[in-house]
């Protein structure tokens, strides 16, 4: 029988028994009437003789229904009663629901981000949070990819239940002007089986696509690309697409939920790894050998641990395998070992730069929820005190304490449920907004699973239950322990004072935690400020960047040189352009761009030294266009081309490390990768190459016409204004080649602000948390002071009758509030001092104990506690002594 059938049955039983009792009373009344009583007296006598009608009914019914149904029905009744009671004080209810919604909503947002970064990083992949990724690690601790031969060894001899390789990156889809740049993955044949991803159309890639280089020119599309670029064409299978200008046959469309194996990248096309040479994918300009070269670490090897296996054991076994590989096929001058990382530490994707910040926000969010609970705790406690009369009456009428506890707990649950629901709604509005903001800034297509799924709902339910336990159960325990005698006397003295102390402690805790939150957000804001003011070594204002790639349009190297030379000449000659140049990569890329092994003439490398340095390929005028200062020597000139002698420019850090001074570097020689020896002709100032908080590091610039490549960025600086400059650059590109797609066009400032976006986001989230916390703590202080003022009305009356002035009274209550604020702030100060050192990695340009941040937070906390205490103190002082004395 279902519960609802039970309820219906129960109602029938009730009606039946009630009618039986009515009949009993009628017969008894008739007998009394026969004895001579008048009808009314007879009726009353019958009822009196019968006893407790309600109890008889309940006991009779219990013979028929199960305990479970009874208990549930009772709870339903309690809920109905609770809703009724709470509807009578809508102010209280709305405040509680609102506060909870904010607290839970904030946490739901942060949790969703955390889930997407670490717990369920790959949408559409079962158990993706438990995947590991094998990478190689250099002596200097830098993480690099795994080569294809090493991947094969891992797959066949590794300690894993499964291993699949992938090389994610930007690929060009389509030809000529229809071409666009998108995220793609070159994957091993078992990739889809490993990920457990099926095709919604056609087939996925299979191990049979990984037999020989270039043998299987096929591709699988993502659902997004299939719909976006091919209008969800049901006959897509068998059609040809061009990836990096190479024709591939579409064999399938992957499942809707799958977005590739890199967090936040919306990977749209999957190609067999064996097609890498055909697509022109090269590792550090060493084409051809890619699939046989143990040096070419271009893969991430995703792996699943064996059942019962741990990451540590797999790591140890992988290290053994790595030694074995090194012994079998030693790599001269490259010293790398295989290392196993949890997927949350995979080297690509949003988790690399977002996870620490989001984890910090999560910790702060939980602190906020604690404040929310402490605040509600206080509110519920006060409500409990004002309801002591009702509770005492219930106890006196024979209700058990458990019953009352249940009622109070249900009342709080009735508040938590809509609070949590509102929090979820809040999160589901905030998340798409954040997503849109983020994807507008992102470089490639961006995918972040922002749906509020079962995991998020579960988290919210858990948070709600814990909150309920904390702020619902504890005060209910206290409230249900009513001392009947003291209620009768309406004296609040002893217990009232004890509760006052308890509430004071709650307020102190709130103030302390909010100080901690404010200090943290202050530190991050100051970091952001410092980062924005910081001299990054270049000037991005007024500079535009336009990215093109020649290879998909069939250019060879010679034609490429001509094209880029013409493009440079035209852009430089255009109106309003001061200077222009080409570059292979931007400054402040957020994640490291390409690195190359750099050899310094006459320098013996220490065994633990990492000689892999970031580099850029630029033309003449690059340093002038980006206003990067020249410390010594000269910048590249148009004469540094194929016919000139081989040259390089290095940064100050590299020059100082190997030759002592910038001037000392001029004329010395170095070699990048396997290229020729180059003479250092110039030393330029350091730039922030990837992140704002990176330490100074060596950097090499190569002249474009001595190391040409197909994809370059055109930088132009001029007085014409960004929009005009961008338009002009587009026009110049298309005048040279109407079929060449523009892959990216934006201002350099837009590009570099991306690197700050994480810091900006963290600062915003933390500031929101901090101010919410402070507002809540102020509410707590306000509530406490106004409550104690109300309690002391009588006392105020006496004091004023005895000659105390209003300002005496104000001072008295103000002092109470401020005193709590001071204690809380002092404790919060200690806590902040202990905690903020963990933030150090997220900070830039300020120390974790930055006095300005601490002082500002302190002033803010004390100011708002005083403000929160002043209003109720003022109200208390306006009490009319005569009314106060008559009170009670």
């Amino acid at each position, binding site marked *: 029988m279902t519960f609802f059938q039970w309820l219906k049955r129960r109602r029938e039983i009730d009606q039946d028994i009630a*009618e039986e009792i009515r*009949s*009993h009373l009628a*017969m008894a009344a*008739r007998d009394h009437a026969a004895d001579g009583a008048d009808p009314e007296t007879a009726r009353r006598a019958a009822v009196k*003789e019968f006893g407790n009608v309600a109890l008889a*009914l309940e006991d*009779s019914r219990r013979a028929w229904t199960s305990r479970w149904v009874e208990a549930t029905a009772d709870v339903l009744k309690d809920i109905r009663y609770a809703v009724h009671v709470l509807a009578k004080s809508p102010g209280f209810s709305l405040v509680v629901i609102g506060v909870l919604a904010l607290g839970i909503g904030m946490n739901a947002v942060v949790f969703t981000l955390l889930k997407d970064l670490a717990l369920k990083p790959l949408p559409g992949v079962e158990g993706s949070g438990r995947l590991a990724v094998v990478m190689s690690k250099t002596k200097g601790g830098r993480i690099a990819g795994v080569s294809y031969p090493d991947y094969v060894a891992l797959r066949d001899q590794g300690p894993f239940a499964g291993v699949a390789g992938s090389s994610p990156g930007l690929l060009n889809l389509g030809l000529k002007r229809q071409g666009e740049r998108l995220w793609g993955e070159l994957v091993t044949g078992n990739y889809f089986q490993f990920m457990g991803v099926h095709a919604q159309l056609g087939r996925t890639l299979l191990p049979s696509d990984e037999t020989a280089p270039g043998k299987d020119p096929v591709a699988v599309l993502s659902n997004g690309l299939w719909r976006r670029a091919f209008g969800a064409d049901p006959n897509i299978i068998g059609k040809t697409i061009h990836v990096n200008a190479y024709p591939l046959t579409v064999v399938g469309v992957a499942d809707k939920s799958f977005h590739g194996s890199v967090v936040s990248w919306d990977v749209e096309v999957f190609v067999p790894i064996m097609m890498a040479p055909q697509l022109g994918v090269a590792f550090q300009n060493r084409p051809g050998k890619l699939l046989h070269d143990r040096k070419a670490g271009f893969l991430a090897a995703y792996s699943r641990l064996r059942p019962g296996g741990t990451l540590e054991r797999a790591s140890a076994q992988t290290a053994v395998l790595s030694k074995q590989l090194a012994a079998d096929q030693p790599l001269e001058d490259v010293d790398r070992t295989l290392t196993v990382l949890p997927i949350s530490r995979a080297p690509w994707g949003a988790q690399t730069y977002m996870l620490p910040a989001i984890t910090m926000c999560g910790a702060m969010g939980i602190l906020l929820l604690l404040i929310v609970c402490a605040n509600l705790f206080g509110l519920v406690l006060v409500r409990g005190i004002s309801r002591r009369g009702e509770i005492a009456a219930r106890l006196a009428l024979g209700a058990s304490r458990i019953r009352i506890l249940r009622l109070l707990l249900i009342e709080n649950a009735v508040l938590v449920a809509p609070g949590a629901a509102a929090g979820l709604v809040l999160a589901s509005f905030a998340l798409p907004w954040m997503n849109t903001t983020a994807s507008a800034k992102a470089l490639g297509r961006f995918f972040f699973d922002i749906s509020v799924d079962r995991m998020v709902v579960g988290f919210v339910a858990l948070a709600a239950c814990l909150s309920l336990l904390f702020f619902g159960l504890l005060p209910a325990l206290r409230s249900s322990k009513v001392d009947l005698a003291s209620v009768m006397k309406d004296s609040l003295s002893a217990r009232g004072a004890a509760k006052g102390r308890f509430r004071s402690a709650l307020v102190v805790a709130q103030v302390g935690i909010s100080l901690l939150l404010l200090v943290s957000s202050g530190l991050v804001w100051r970091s952001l400020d410092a980062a924005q003011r910081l001299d990054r070594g270049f000037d991005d204002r007024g500079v535009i960047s336009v990215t093109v790639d020649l290879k998909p349009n069939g250019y060879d190297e010679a034609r490429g040189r001509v094209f880029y030379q013409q493009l440079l000449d035209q852009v430089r000659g255009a109106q309003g352009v001061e200077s222009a140049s080409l570059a292979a990569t931007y400054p402040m890329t957020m994640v490291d761009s390409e690195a190359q092994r750099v050899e310094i003439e006459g320098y013996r490398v220490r065994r633990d030294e990492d000689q892999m340095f970031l580099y850029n390929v630029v033309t003449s005028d690059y340093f002038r266009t980006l206003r990067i200062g020249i410390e010594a020597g000269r910048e590249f000139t148009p004469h540094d081309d194929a016919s000139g002698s081989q040259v390089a420019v290095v940064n100050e850090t590299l020059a100082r490390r190997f030759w002592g001074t910038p001037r000392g570097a001029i004329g010395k020689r170095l070699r990048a990768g396997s290229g020729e020896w180059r003479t250092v002709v110039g030393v330029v100032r350091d730039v922030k190459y990837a992140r704002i908080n990176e330490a100074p590091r060596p950097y090499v610039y190569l002249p474009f016409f001595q190391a040409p490549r197909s994809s370059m960025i055109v930088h132009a600086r001029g007085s014409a204004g960004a929009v005009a400059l961008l338009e002009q650059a587009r026009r110049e590109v298309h005048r040279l080649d109407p079929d060449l797609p523009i892959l990216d066009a934006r201002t350099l400032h837009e590009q570099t602000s991306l690197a700050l976006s994480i810091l900006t986001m963290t600062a915003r989230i933390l500031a929101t948390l901090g101010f919410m916390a402070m507002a809540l703590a102020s509410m707590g202080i306000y509530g406490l002071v106004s409550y104690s003022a109300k309690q002391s009305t009588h006392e105020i009356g006496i004091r004023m009758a005895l000659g105390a002035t209003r300002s005496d009274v104000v001072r008295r209550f103000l002092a109470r509030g401020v005193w709590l604020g001071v204690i809380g702030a002092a404790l919060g100060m200690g806590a902040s001092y202990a905690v903020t050192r963990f933030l150090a990695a997220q900070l830039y340009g300020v120390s974790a104990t930055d006095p300005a941040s601490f002082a500002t937070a302190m002033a803010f906390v004390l100011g708002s506690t005083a403000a929160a205490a002043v209003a109720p103190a003022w109200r208390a002082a306006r009490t009319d002594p005569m009314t106060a004395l008559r009170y009670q």
Partner: protein
Amino acid sequence: MARQPSESEARIELLQGTLDMLILRTLQWGPQHGYAIAQTIRAQSTDVLRVEAGSLYPALQRLAKRGWVTAKWDQTEANQRAKFYRLTPEGKKQLVREQSKWGELVAAIGRILNPEAPPSGVKE
């Protein structure tokens, strides 16, 4: 009803379980409604045993649930609608069992209270 303070002291609390037996016994003479059952027990015990309505109705529900009595709405002689309880064959057997158990209990208590008296047989 006139107040009779001494009467309530003279009343005896029913032992747990005996109410069921008394109800079954009362129903032996034919179907009766709750009020009549209470009145009969009171009259037959010469006012010593008074059945609380708060115990009687739950007890009747219990007996009905176990299948020892069946209930049916009907009219009384005074034309009042009332629920009549009727003993089932199962209920009759149960009454016999309870009566014999009760007899043993009384005899045993009797032996304890009057140890010198010779043991007497159990009367049905």
